């Protein structure tokens, strides 16, 4: 069936100039997977008849069933272009497009991150009727921050013509609006290395079409067509096809104004030459009684020939057949991808700075920049793909330099590898096999040269989720990906039979490996086994995977989804808190203060990006932006939890002897305190603890870690308790698109769910309004179903974790909601329902 052979692909893989690595990204339901079908069919993997319906890239059963992409899927496609119209830098007329279809639902956006990391270009798909959504913005931002060049595809034009019955001019306006909204985001990323990446129709980096019907065009295509017809230079026509260029039929010339001198409305070039004919075609074909004459005339002018059989088709199918022949989707897309997206050779030159942790002049960096097949092997594994064999994975990623071969001996640098500790998380092993990912199929190949995407067999046991594979001894790892989604919704699971616990854990580990946004935790203090994910849908899919795949045959009991809270302080401690060590010989005096939310976010950001706080940059920010005293900035002892979280421990004492000795013990205590706060053992967020005074025993044996750590924890707990402790709950940013006439019901529902409406914007060209609101995650369970029922299924919502918000009620006062949450959390963790009183932590002199 396939129009090309594996040998052709293998041959092409050695020509980086003719390779394009791209991801298809968009908001959910904007038609990525359907559009991809066209590309796949062009390559001959499925018949063109099925394109638009088959959803080849949805390889999982549940994906097909729900018509939603859950995991990103990769495929390598082979195309041949005409000899005359090759791009400047190319090597023959055949091209290899490695394409990743990514999920659009926000719960799975970690998949997008992983896909973009190994792509050089992104095909951004936008529904022309509903326009750009939050998720479009999010994924585009992700692409740009990875220095991935975007091209735009305005999809579902058929809806604008058929459903909304828009006139060509209105459609044009709609297009302009979409392009503008995309350009707004792009313009905020000025990157001299990427160059001018703004979307411009006349440049040809935007395509219009309908994935479902399998047609797409760019202005370039029409310009070429008319150029042939009128024997005029292509460039001249191209100029007239976009923007304010109107055809004045009386004077037979192009003008820049909408109206001629007599006040007659003129037709825009785009409408007259492109949208007009298309709309007309739609009209003629959809007429109840077919106007054969008009149809034939039109077909003649666009140069489409139909067989007799095809002529007999129903109008709907006939339209698809004609459009597929007239403007085949794949041609326009392939042209756009090949001309406007960079080859690895080009892209890696500027992407290397964003990718490689080591020095930009070292051997590996140079090899990456030059995409050198002879250089040291540098490959980034961005994702684990489950194999057919249960429990094993392909490590999927991209070779950035060198060549990887089956049987080759390589060094694997895991996520936790740090060049400072060269022995940790570093393994040497053999690559068992290299495979090419072809949708749901794989093709084993013997080697793979740089610039390509590839799956590896036999390294999954060494990698948690991502990692670097190299042959260079002193190679630095690739930079870690930062995920925009945080796992805030969690469920606790347990096996029905306790003996199956080991198998459950094994399954959890595999689940974690397969999905970069799942966190599987074992809380040893409470004996809870927890899966944390981005949202309800995400967890539902995870649980399903666990039950049907990774833990097959084990009965699993799962709890209702719960949210994780945070604990914080809202004012300065009302008193200096004192704790004594068990031997009474040492004392610690501390006070807690709240930290600004803004600073917490800065810390979190610095944490994910650099992992080092001692950077002068960050410390300078503290003094300049947050007006901290310089001498205190120097005395930051610890961040927590996990040495990186948004809480600070600062030493404000003066001239204490042996103080250095207890620093690591206090820091250890601080980690313990910040990972489990005093209220209900939830992580602490936004608390600064200042050590006011310390008294230590003169003999070092009496001030060992065993004395200091418990004392430190107790004093920190006391300081939190006296600093007006509050719970923080996670909040979703919820975007709901709904017809105006049912928006009232949505408001009511949001009100009931404690949602706060931020904005309501009407979508032009439709009767839809977009309601943006803050929605507490704890209230969001079942929100989807409620929304459907109150709006009769007319509303569409998308929720993504946005921020933590302080619950104003006092959790220590009986009868408040915060108090109830705290008790519930404590009971779930097997603790006493009430936290200990202050006296338990605060000692008296």
């Amino acid at each position, binding site marked *: 069936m396939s129009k090309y052979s594996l040998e052709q692909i293998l041959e092409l893989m050695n020509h980086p100039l003719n390779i394009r690595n791209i991801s298809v990204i968009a908001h959910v339901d904007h038609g990525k997977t359907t559009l991809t079908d066209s590309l796949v069919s062009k390559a001959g993997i499925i018949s063109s008849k099925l394109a638009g319906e088959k959803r080849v890239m949805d390889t999982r059963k549940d994906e097909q069933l729900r018509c939603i992409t859950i995991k990103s899927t990769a495929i390598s496609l082979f195309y041949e272009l005409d000899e005359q119209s090759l791009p400047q830098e190319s090597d023959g007329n055949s091209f290899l497009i490695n394409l990743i279809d990514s999920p659009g639902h926000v719960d799975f956006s970690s998949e997008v991150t992983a896909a973009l990391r190994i792509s050089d270009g992104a095909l951004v798909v936008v529904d022309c009727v509903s326009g750009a959504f939050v998720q479009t913005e999010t994924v585009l931002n992700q692409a740009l921050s990875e220095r991935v060049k975007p091209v735009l595809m305005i999809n579902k034009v058929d809806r604008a013509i058929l459903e909304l019955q828009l006139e060509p001019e209105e459609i044009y306006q709609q297009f302009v609006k979409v392009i503008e909204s995309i350009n707004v985001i792009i313009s905020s990323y000025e990157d001299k290395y990427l160059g001018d990446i703004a979307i411009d129709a006349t440049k040809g980096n935007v395509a219009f079409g309908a994935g479902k019907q399998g047609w797409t065009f760019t202005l370039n295509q029409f310009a070429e067509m008319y150029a042939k017809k009128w024997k005029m230079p292509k460039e001249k026509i191209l100029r007239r096809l976009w923007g304010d260029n109107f055809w004045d039929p009386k004077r037979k010339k192009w003008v820049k104004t909408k109206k001629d001198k007599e006040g007659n409305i003129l037709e825009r070039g785009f409408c007259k030459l492109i949208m007009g004919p298309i709309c007309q075609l739609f009209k003629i074909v959809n007429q109840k009684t077919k106007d054969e004459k008009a149809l034939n005339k039109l077909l003649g002018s666009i140069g489409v020939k139909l067989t007799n059989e095809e002529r007999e088709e129903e109008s709907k199918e006939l339209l698809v057949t004609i459009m597929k022949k007239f403007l085949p989707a794949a041609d326009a897309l392939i042209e756009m991808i090949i001309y406007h997206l960079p080859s690895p050779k080009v892209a890696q030159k500027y992407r290397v700075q964003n990718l490689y942790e080591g020095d930009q002049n070292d051997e590996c960096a140079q090899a990456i920049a030059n995409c050198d097949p002879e250089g040291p092997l540098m490959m980034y594994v961005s994702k684990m793909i489950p194999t057919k064999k249960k429990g094993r994975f392909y490590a999927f990623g991209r070779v950035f330099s060198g060549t990887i071969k089956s049987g080759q001996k390589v060094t694997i640098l895991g996520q936790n590898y740090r060049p400072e500790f060269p*022995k940790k998380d570093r393994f040497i092993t053999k690559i068992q096999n290299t495979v090419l990912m072809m949708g749901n199929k794989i093709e084993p190949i013997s080697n793979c040269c740089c610039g390509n995407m590839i799956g590896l067999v036999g390294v999954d046991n060494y990698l948690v989720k991502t990692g670097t594979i190299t042959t260079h001894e002193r190679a630095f790892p690739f930079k870690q990906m930062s995920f925009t989604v945080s796992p805030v919704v969690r469920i606790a699971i*347990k096996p029905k039979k306790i003996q199956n616990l080991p198998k459950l854990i094994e399954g959890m580990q595999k689940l974690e490996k397969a999905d970069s946004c799942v966190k599987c935790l074992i*809380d040893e*203090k409470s004996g*809870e086994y927890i899966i944390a994910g981005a949202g309800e849908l995400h967890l539902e899919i995870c649980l399903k995977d666990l039950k049907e795949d990774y833990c097959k045959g084990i009965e699993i009991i799962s709890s209702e989804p719960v949210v994780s809270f945070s604990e914080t302080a809202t004012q300065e401690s009302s008193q200096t808190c004192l704790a004594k060590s068990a031997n009474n010989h040492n004392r610690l005096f501390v006070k807690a203060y709240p930290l600004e939310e803004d600073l917490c976010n800065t810390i979190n950001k610095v944490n994910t990006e650099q992992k080092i706080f001692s950077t002068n940059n960050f410390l300078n920010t503290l003094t300049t932006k947050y007006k901290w005293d310089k001498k205190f900035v120097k005395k930051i002892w610890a961040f927590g939890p996990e040495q990186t979280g948004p809480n600070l421990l600062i030493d404000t004492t003066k001239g204490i002897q042996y103080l250095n000795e207890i620093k690591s013990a206090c820091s*250890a205590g601080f980690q313990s305190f910040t990972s489990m706060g005093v209220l209900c053992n939830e992580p602490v967020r936004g608390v600064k603890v200042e050590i006011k005074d310390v008294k230590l025993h003169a003999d070092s044996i009496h001030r060992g870690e*065993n004395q200091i750590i*418990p004392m430190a924890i107790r004093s920190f707990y006391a300081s939190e308790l006296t600093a007006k402790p509050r719970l923080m709950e996670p909040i979703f940013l919820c975007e709901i698109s709904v017809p105006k006439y049912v928006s009232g019901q949505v408001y009511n529902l949001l009100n009931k769910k404690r949602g706060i409406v931020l904005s309501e914007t009407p979508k032009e060209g439709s009767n839809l309004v977009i309601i943006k609101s803050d929605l507490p995650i704890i209230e969001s369970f079942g929100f989807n179903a409620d929304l459907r029922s109150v709006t009769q299924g007319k509303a569409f919502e998308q929720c993504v974790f946005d921020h933590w918000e302080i619950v104003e009620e006092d959790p220590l006062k009986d009868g408040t909601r915060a108090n109830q949450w705290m008790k519930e959390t404590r009971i779930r963790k097997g603790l006493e329902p009430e936290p200990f009183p202050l006296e338990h932590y605060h000692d*008296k*002199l």
Partner: protein
Amino acid sequence: MENFDEQFSITKTVEVIKKNKSTRVVLQLPPKLLQFSYKIEKHLKKALKDDKISFFILAGASTRNCCIDTVSSARVFGDLIVHYGHSCLSSTAQIPILNIFIPTKISIQNIISAFETEFSTQKAKQMILFYSTEVENSISGLILQLNKTFPNLKRTFLNLQKNEEEKEKEQKPEKEEKEQELEEKKEKKKEEVKEKEEEKEEVKEKEKEKEKENLKIFGRILPITDITQLTKNQLIWLGSSTNPTLFSLALTFGAGNILVLDPEKEYLEFEKMERTQPMRRILMKRYALIEKAKKSENIGIVVGTTNPEKDLQIVKYLQLLIKNSKKKSQVISMGVVKSLKLGNFVHDLDIFVVIGCNESIILDQSDYYRSVLVPDELDLALNHDREWDGTINLSFYPNNDMIANLEKKLKQSLDLIIIEQQNQKQIDNLIISRSETRSFKGLETRLGENKVTQIEEGLSGRASQYQDEIDLN
């Protein structure tokens, strides 16, 4: 007065002291009972009327309260240890020991009626009765009564240290129980004759007898010879539902098979073990620790008992096991395991495994900065041949085969390393010296940097509040 005598078995103690001709008697009391120590000593002295006998009260033992503190007693050259209160009965010490269990009053009638309501309708299944040390005094009478209606009920015996005489006496009921119930005295004589006859017989015969010896576990002698039989029986616990021995039983044999009857409750009723304690949650927590042990790099082996002869075997096994898993181990001898003591090692060790008595599992670890495991848990974590069946064997003890097996494996893996090194492969051992990462690297000497000053007066007073300290709040 009589009551006190009864409670602390003064008469029995006096008997034993006289029989053993002890002169230096050590009284080991748990903190809860220490308040009675003086009174006990007074009563004993009064009853003995012998000035040569001196008493020593152990306040603050160097072992857990349930174990016999031979170390402290050796310091005063004690020749008899009287242990009061709950005991784990796992001591193998040579010194004479007298266990005094503070008895609780039980109503035999109520217990029997509880048995009747629970089991009258059920088909006779073999039952094995375990009981807490507190009811030892009244257990024989109870069993006698119970067996009338429940012939399928077998009892366990406490595995107490006995002198020769007692041994002979008690071996009889272990073998043939029913006979005992019928005609005790006659049978006893017969048995004794039998015993003596047997002793005269060939050594081989004796060895055979030994093989058939009844199973001993958790300080109890079981009426069965093979551990696999145990799970086929219904296990019954007579005693408090928070008794540590019960936990050991439940963790080792699974809680599902145990029914609990707490004689101190007002209304006597059988309860399922799982009902009285969140065993599921405990097991989930314990398994979380096992998972943690798999990821730990440096493991501390804490020897927390006072009979090292027995524990050497287990230490050796654990060391081999850890070495085999390419982890590092360190042996620490500690006596009573306390979080503060373990706290001294937090920087260097990731997890601890405690070798202690049967009841030394630490269920509540909220005070500990590093998790504390029992040997069986570490074996589950590191021994890949084992599959978890939902229990934790607290009587885990490695035999010589297991050690030999590990030694063989270790040798093989060492060979493998050599081969791999020949292939110029780098074996990445995970062990990292932690000392490099410490922020404190010893006292600052600052020689010549400090100004020379006069001697200053230091702090004075008690540590909890020095004289110059005023309350800040």
